[in-house]
């Protein structure tokens, strides 16, 4: 004989009913399943078939959870209780999401992935290394405003300021 109470308890998950009503609901639904199972057996059906028939009475357990809660408590099932968002079977998903968020929160990871700028971390020496001396000179000579924008600079004066970040001495020597 299947443990119907255990089956119903697992299917209903954390149904937050007050005053011990959850246990009563579980017992009552388990009895319904058990009676249907016994009736099927009495009709000469195999145990497996009887179990399948019995469980087929409740097709959508999630919907049943919502309706049971609404009927007993007179209110909607809280959103965080719906669809088993926080049920034990979803624990690995939440763990992975939590760790990913933690990883992304670390400035080192964000810098490495170049997803989000770290406040105060840009422009930095590494950033200015993205353009070589020769490239910066070409941009300066072209006078192309779009290229200035792409380099993160707004005018040739800024270009001059941004260039010495890595090799200020070489910049001075070039102008000289």
């Amino acid at each position, binding site marked *: 004989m299947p443990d119907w109470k255990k089956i119903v308890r697992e299917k209903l998950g954390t149904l937050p009913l007050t005053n011990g009503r959850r246990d*009563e*609901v579980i*017992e*009552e*639904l388990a*009895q*319904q399943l058990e*009676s*249907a199972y016994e009736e099927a057996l009495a009709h000469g059906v195999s145990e497996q078939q009887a179990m399948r028939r019995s469980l087929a*009475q*409740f*097709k*959508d357990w999630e*919907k*049943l959870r919502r*309706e*049971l809660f*609404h*009927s*007993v408590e*007179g209110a909607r099932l809280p959103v965080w209780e719906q669809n088993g968002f926080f049920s034990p079977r979803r624990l690995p998903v939440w763990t992975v999401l939590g760790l990913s968020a933690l990883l992304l929160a670390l400035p080192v990871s964000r810098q490495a992935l170049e997803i989000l700028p770290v406040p105060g971390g840009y422009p930095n020496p590494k950033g200015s290394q993205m353009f070589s001396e020769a490239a910066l000179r070409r941009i300066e000579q072209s006078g192309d405003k779009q290229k200035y924008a792409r380099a993160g600079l707004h005018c040739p004066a800024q270009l001059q300021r941004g260039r010495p970040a890595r090799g200020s001495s070489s910049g001075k020597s070039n102008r000289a």
Partner: protein
Amino acid sequence: MAVAPDRELKKGNAELLILALLEDQARHGYEIGKLIAERSEGVLRFHVASLYPLLYRLERRGWVTGEWEPAGGRRRRYYRLTQTGRKILGKQRSRWRAFSAAVNRIVEVRHA
């Protein structure tokens, strides 16, 4: 062949069916579901997934009370009509009679 009644029609009268079955004696959920199918000769079938939420709703409204009682070596939750439930049943029954009589007057009469 029995024609499956409209879902809405069934839904609207589900309360009346349950209250009527509890009028004479207390019954448990499984028995209520079986009786509805038997007495309607299979035309009306209650999804048990709808039956229990409906029973709990009726209980919350104070129309029925549920109590655990021993039955056949185990305990079962039996539902009984309350005084309020009995009044509601009376009202719903007369409304149903008026409605079905009105429909019959239209549907069953062939005009020349």
